[in-house]
């Protein structure tokens, strides 16, 4: 199956590690041009170097997405450099924690507002694309209880509602909007590696919840995202696709 990604222009935030990194490497392998950002300069430089080697156009910068103006300016620069934007994947997250009220502000500014600002800033480009597609990275934490009343979970839930309503709003302009909600994803330097090392009981519990006994890999999530983002996923919009190897237990009608 040809996903139809060759020559498409994809902008992905937080793309030097984990899921974000797997997404840009896969999209580039499928022939898409890439605009990426992350916080750490040498990691951005390395990702740009490695992806360029695949023969696609790539632009990358260090951006703190909490800084709304700087972030929006970068999005415009990236779209201009790539000559448009067909795919937008807001992936950055502030992560978990419920030890401070500030987690709410941080999760709101990072998880919610960087997604909203990105969608609004890039929408004119996505409308011009003809195959415009947004895939928002949410989490299974939004649909089942996990880890306590964390800002992270509530903000990921906000993204589900925002995504659905945005999909209705921009559908007539030919832009699709979906969420992918990964369950636990394990990778070197990832959150679950930290949990395994510092909270082994929580890690063991999570492993027991997964019938197949394996956490996801960033590459597995990236394949789901790539399909939904691509023209091949043309019929899917307003969906929340769970990619969790059976970690969650609810029935999804």
């Amino acid at each position, binding site marked *: 199956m040809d996903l139809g990604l060759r020559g498409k222009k994809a902008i992905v935030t937080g793309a030097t590690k984990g899921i974000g990194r797997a997404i840009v490497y896969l999209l580039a392998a499928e022939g898409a041009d890439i605009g990426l950002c992350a916080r750490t300069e040498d990691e951005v430089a390395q990702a740009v170097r490695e992806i360029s080697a695949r023969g696609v156009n790539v632009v990358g910068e260090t951006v703190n997405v909490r800084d709304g103006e700087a972030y929006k300016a970068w999005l415009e620069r990236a779209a201009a450099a790539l000559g448009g934007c067909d795919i937008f994947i807001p992936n950055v997250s502030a992560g978990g*924690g419920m030890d401070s*009220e*500030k*987690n709410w502000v941080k999760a709101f500014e990072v998880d919610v507002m960087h997604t909203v600002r990105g969608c609004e800033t890039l929408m004119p480009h996505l409308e011009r694309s003809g195959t415009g597609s947004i895939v928002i990275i949410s989490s299974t934490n939004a649909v089942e209880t996990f880890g306590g009343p964390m800002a992270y979970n509530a903000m990921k839930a906000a993204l589900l509602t925002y995504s659905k309503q945005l999909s209705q709003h921009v559908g007539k302009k030919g832009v699709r909007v979906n969420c992918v909600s990964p369950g636990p994803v394990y990778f070197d*330097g990832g959150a679950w590696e*930290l949990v395994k*090392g510092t909270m082994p009981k929580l890690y063991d519990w999570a492993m027991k919840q997964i019938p197949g006994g394996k956490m996801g890999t960033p590459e597995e999530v990236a394949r789901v995202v790539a399909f939904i983002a691509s023209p091949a996923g043309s019929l899917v919009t307003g969906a929340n696709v769970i990619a969790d190897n059976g970690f969650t237990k609810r029935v999804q009608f």
Partner: protein
Amino acid sequence: MGSDEDFLKRSRSPAYTPVPRVKPADSPETPAEKHPDPQLGADLIDARRYTSREYMAREWERLWTKVWLLGARLIDIPEPGDYEVTEIGRESILIVRQADGGVRGFYNVCQHRGNRLRDCGLGTTGEGRSFTCAYHHWEYELDGSYRRIPDIDTFAQGRPARGLREVSCDTWGGFVWFTMNEKPEPLLDFLGPIPRHLDPYHFDRMVQTRDITVEWNCNWKTSVDAFNESYHVQGIHPQLLWYLHDLDIQIDCYERHSRYLIPFGTLSPRVRRPPSIPEPIKSIMKGAGMDPADYDGPIADIRGDVQKHKRAQGRAQGRDYSRLNDDQLTDDYHYLIFPNLSLNVHADDFWIFRQRPHPTDPDRMFYDILTYDLVPQGAEWPARVKHRDWRHGDKSIGTVLDQDAANLPGVQAGMHSAGFPGLWIGRQELRIRHFHKVLDDYIHGSGGRPAGAP
């Protein structure tokens, strides 16, 4: 079977960038400079010294009855007649606050028929200010002299020439120290550099928060060794790799005592940088009054930023860090006061792990957990915790110490094996080698350890 090259590739310690450290000139009180390493060779440390009853007897004769030992804390025995009974091997020592405010120590044994006068732990004579033996009611003054011997006229020989047998006592750091040595060197000579290193922490401003004795199924030295190196962190404390630097550790071996300085609040080079601040490092930030959710810098900067924050905020929090250097505000300054005190010393708390030998069994020991927290100036002085006695594995003593405790019986069992000649010690374990060298000096004297001796 792989080649030597494969073996080395799998086994080499990871490269790392050194952690920033305070310059010696910026540490006016506790010395920060690296002490030259002693040249102690690379021999095996004979396993028999952990298992042999003969060696244990020699330790009693040449070590325990010669060194200065931690006895009591002065604020626990404030009034005349207040006392603490502490045990070491076969002996029980009674440390008593005197009428003149001084402190004296005695073997805790009635001169009549040998009965123990008081049980282990804290107590007071109250206003009576005397110790009466429960057996025939021989009664002693606080200074150990006789107050009353019932029916003294029925002893043709009169009363013994001496009252309670005294041991030498002295004080440092708010603690009473004692020695059974009849011709002891002064306590401060024995402690050497320790008071200069540790006085700036103001132990007198700290309240006791744990007072637990656990009987452990290992030799006392097996336990000393367990706290004398950081190499085991990657083995049995994997969670600490997201909390401390287990390779960039400054080791300083002095004449008898030693220390190492472990950077806290930073990642080990053995783990990858995680996407968020690890909970253990968050706890350090919270302890300093910082909000981790507010922190936007890289994890590698946290240790330095905690130091700056504590330096700036300490006084307002009632915490006087004026005599400490910056590294002392975050790091573990870990001391071994020879032979049996492992101290984790921090700006806001310190922990003493004391290893005491069993009276008769080289495969058992008593592990004391004594911890103390800084009481902010102006805050009410909290009540001290009560003492508890536990057996090995009875109860959790905290994740890290549980991990240490779970490991030790296996180590002790292995010491008895015909398949184990002795300890193969690496550079990260230099303090273990140093400890055993000092032990040799006590056991064998200036002549050194004879060939073939454990």
